[in-house]
């Protein structure tokens, strides 16, 4: 992924904030890390957040938050559910605050 930087899975990956690299939208926390032990050196093959598997190829940058390429990953399911069933029924839900 990134050459020349040592990452500590517990310190730099687990429980770190996930964000969409395009718009900065917050997409959950890293709950678990999937390791590929068949490779010559074990590598992180995916991150798990809220039951969704994020392949390492979609991880763009590991900064104070982990920037990912969202693609068609369904990381907003719960938020969308609350939006459709509750929040959108309240007037002004789609307005920016003044």
């Amino acid at each position, binding site marked *: 992924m990134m050459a020349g930087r040592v990452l500590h899975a517990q310190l730099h990956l687990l429980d770190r904030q996930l964000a969409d690299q395009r718009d900065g939208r917050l997409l959950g*926390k890293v709950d678990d890390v999937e390791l590929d032990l068949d490779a010559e050196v074990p590598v992180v093959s995916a991150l798990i957040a809220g039951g969704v598997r994020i392949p390492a190829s979609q991880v763009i940058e590991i900064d104070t938050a982990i920037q990912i390429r969202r693609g068609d990953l369904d990381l907003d399911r719960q*938020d969308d559910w*609350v*939006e459709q069933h*509750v929040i959108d029924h*309240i007037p002004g*839900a789609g307005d920016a*605050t*003044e």
Partner: protein
Amino acid sequence: MKRLVGVTLGILTAIGGFVDIGDLVTNALVGSRFGMRLAWVVVVGVIGICLYAEMAGRVVALSGRPVFDLIRERLGRRTGLVTLIASFLVTLLTLIAEIGGVALALELASGVQYLLWVPLAAIAVWLVIWRVKFSRLEQVFGLLGLLLIGFAVALWQLGPDWGDLMHQATTPRPTGNESWLTYAYYAIALFGAAMTPYEVFFFSSGGVEEKWNRRDLVTARSNVFIGFPLGGLLSLAIAGCAAVVYLPAGIEVGTLGQVTLPTAMALGQLGLAVVLVGVFAATFGAALETALSCGYTIAQYRGWQWGKLVRPREASRFHLVIIICLVLAILTLLTAVDPVKVTEYSVVFAAMALPLTYLPILIIANDPDYMGRHTNGPVLNFFALIYLGLLLLASIAAIPLMIVTKAGQ
């Protein structure tokens, strides 16, 4: 004026910590029973919250990460969850008390029973969160809350024996019928109020709402070093008024009406009216601070999109948490529970949450991955560690002292 508007986040945060409804009554109660003999605790508390809020502000400006985000990241999911539960409960209990406090202030001003004001107060808080821009909210309620300076003016007008007040402040021990146990209980209550966890949750999340970056380091610092000492000053002025009016008479303060009475004695009806607007703004501001913090803590622990910087529908779960908390506040208050008593119980949860809230801030403020060259210096770390020890001591002693003294009686 522009300067003042730039530090309203710090002022509003401090008002929530130092002069919310529980503190208004506690400060006056302490003044009426101990005079200024506990004033040193407020000074110690102001220094502590300044140290840690400065770190939290610096972390936000440099990394964009608010405090609860860091708590889970450094403490892990399980310990993070314990901290979440404890700090969420303190914040929720305080929110309940603040909604009651807004209603009590409206009762004092209108004569209409406070229970009738409770639902209206909660809806008003929600409407402000739903519709009003973060910076406007912090300016309006931060600056209006400053009207509590009326207490300092009132203290001046009362013409107290300043030498006597100074003498009290420099003799830190209980007097008369008071025991060391009640003295220690109120010392912890005042210290806990000064460093109450939702202050750093709100302050750091507010920094994100205001889109702070490394150019805003100075803004973050001036918010801390102006806001919190001002909060401490207001709290000392309230205690001072009570020390002058009630201590010689041997009256123990227990209601909001008694808290504001010295301002009426010193400044007349107009002075009282100004202070009541201040009380309303401070409790309303604290209600906004705690309601938002309920949403901030859960959303940041879970990694949800949060904040008023996006439209409500884009942070649906965050807004749902706030709505549920406000409904819980209305239901609790309508059982006619005393709002001031509610804050006393929050001390228990605050005690558990305190060390676990501040430790991750200290760790991250020393992590060059986040801070680059702006990590803590050794002197700052030395004092931060002393305060961590004090917080730990307070958290261990709070619950036994509460039981032994029957919450300070």
